[in-house]
């Protein structure tokens, strides 16, 4: 990849969900335009934020990027390769390079598997590290990298707190050394005192590993802390895409201004106290 070329290109992405009635004679009564013509690029090494309210299409957008959903139209290219039409081995190879961290650290980890098995599973799926000792060593390295004690290899998810589970999810996502990490609301299910731990960890991992990050949140303060550029979404469309400084310093879209004005908090207090 030449310098300056985007790692991800999303062009005219559309996802319509049909609302149907009837069981035998299914007919479409309405169409939900979850993602309605979204285009953006993600540059290597940057963090792109997707922000918006419930139902704006931000999660659907990244699921389309990962091909967890099939787009109705548009295309996604990763490092110049076509993700939208990739099949079989091609798609599997792409997925090694794009990984995802989910919102809910409780439902995204299999409760019947040990942490070692969860974090080591990507190696099994991709037939890497076939010998057990090697895999075990890699998993222990990953656990250490995300700030978990490798001694807890044989523990089950329920023995970990929410923040630690999110670290397990991050370790699993990093197992195959992806270039792109997509984090969908990674801290919104966590207690406030834990959120900063996970946000700091993601920032550190990004600079250590040179990761490219797509970060989804409904929280404008979190997005501001994490992202270099930000896309504001509403009703399946991007209403504003700008650099962090520009979006927060001089927002252009009325909707962005409305969102910013709604952030709770004490403009009066916080500026004097935390500024």
């Amino acid at each position: 990849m030449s310098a300056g070329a985007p790692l991800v290109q999303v062009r005219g992405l559309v996802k319509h969900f049909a609302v149907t009635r009837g069981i035998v004679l299914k007919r479409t009564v309405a169409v939900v335009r979850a993602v309605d013509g979204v285009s953006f690029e993600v540059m290597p090494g940057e963090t792109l934020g997707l922000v918006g309210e419930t139902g704006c299409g931000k999660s659907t957008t990244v699921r389309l990027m990962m091909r967890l959903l099939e787009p109705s139209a548009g295309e996604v290219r990763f490092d110049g390769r076509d993700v939208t039409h990739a099949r079989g081995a091609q798609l599997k190879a792409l997925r090694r390079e794009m990984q995802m961290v989910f919102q809910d650290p409780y439902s995204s980890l299999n409760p019947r598997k040990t942490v070692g098995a969860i974090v080591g599973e990507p190696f099994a799926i991709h037939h890497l590290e076939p010998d057990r000792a090697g895999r075990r060593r890699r998993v222990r390295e990953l656990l250490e990298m995300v700030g978990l004690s490798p001694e807890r290899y044989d523990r089950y998810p329920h023995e970990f707190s929410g923040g630690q589970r999110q670290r397990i999810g991050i370790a699993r996502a990093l197992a195959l050394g992806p270039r792109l990490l997509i984090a969908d609301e990674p801290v919104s299910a966590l207690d406030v005192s834990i959120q900063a731990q996970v946000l700091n960890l993601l920032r550190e991992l990004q600079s250590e590993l040179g990761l490219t990050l797509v970060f989804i949140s409904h929280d404008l303060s979190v997005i501001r802390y994490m992202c270099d550029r930000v896309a504001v979404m509403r009703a399946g469309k991007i209403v504003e895409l700008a650099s962090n400084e520009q979006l927060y310093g001089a927002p252009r879209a009325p909707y962005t201004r409305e969102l910013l004005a709604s952030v709770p908090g004490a403009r009066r207090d916080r500026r004097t106290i935390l500024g």
Partner: protein
Amino acid sequence: MSAAAEPLLRVEDLRVSFPTEDGVVHALDGVSYEVARGGTLGIVGESGSGKTVCALSTMGLTRGQGAEVSGRILFQGRDLLALSERQLRSLRGGEIAMIFQDPLSALHPLFKLGAQVAEAVRAHQHVSRAQARARALELLELVAIPEPGQRANAYPHELSGGMRQRGMIAMALANEPKLLIADEPTTALDVTVQAQILALLARLQRELGMAIVIITHDLAMVAEMAQQIAVMYAGRIVEKAPAELLFSAPQHPYTWGLLRSIPTLERPRDERLAAIPGAPPSLIERPSGCHFHPRCPYARPAHARIDPALQPLAGRPQHSVACLLEAPERARIWSELRAGRTPAPAAETASGAKGSDEAAGLTAAQRRR
């Protein structure tokens, strides 16, 4: 506080524990606070800090769950813990009302919104169905639901989250309560809707003169809403102050942690968030001594043994803190934190040769606690 300024609600040494298979959960451990008439108290804490049990106990809703409750909850001078279930029921939804985090599970799914609000009216007032219905429409209008006549005929699932929350507020206001307890009233809502609901609560408070206890994990939200703030940790209030003081001169290391670990729209981006290490403790096996000491960067060895009481600051009776650090030491640490520096751990500043208790500046009386 003298009788002249008797608060609307005064909670004294409230303790609530639940026996479970895993052990006794000490949900509330000696909590005291007051709410002035027409005032707003914000109770801030993380999950498991006991903040919701605080609210439920005031409503008498921890009864019948095998909970052991002690202390006093004085509402206009009457101890709610001494009331019968029947007496309590006449207060609930009448003079004291509550709104919950999730309006979808708090509203009945099979009844229309208008009917549910009308039922709340008829539960406490002897009025005809038609009168109750008319009052319900008034209430829906009061909480700024557009086209109340039409929305009254909608079922909860047909309404948006914001409309449901407004509907629940309308129900809570049905009998003009003197006290409204709002448990995470906006957590499930989008940020623009959240702003609308908070503005609505503030307006209703002004118009109806009711007191509000707002329970949340969000310090920024109480900064906007509350005059008084209590910070809870592991079933206790660790700091209590008027809002301006809590934000301008916070005293407890946990409060510092909360204030500094949250990204804001103002803080410089390149500054690392100061995360609080560790995780909130279990309420079954609470840490010894100061419950916060395992996560406190300034804890000294003695703090693992001594349990701090919530005490007013010298010369500032309205501001209380439960912390074993000396006041000048706390002031030094906070001023360094504000300046963006990393303060030296407190233990190193004390003369190292002495025993740790002396270093912690403890009196003999405190050591015995």
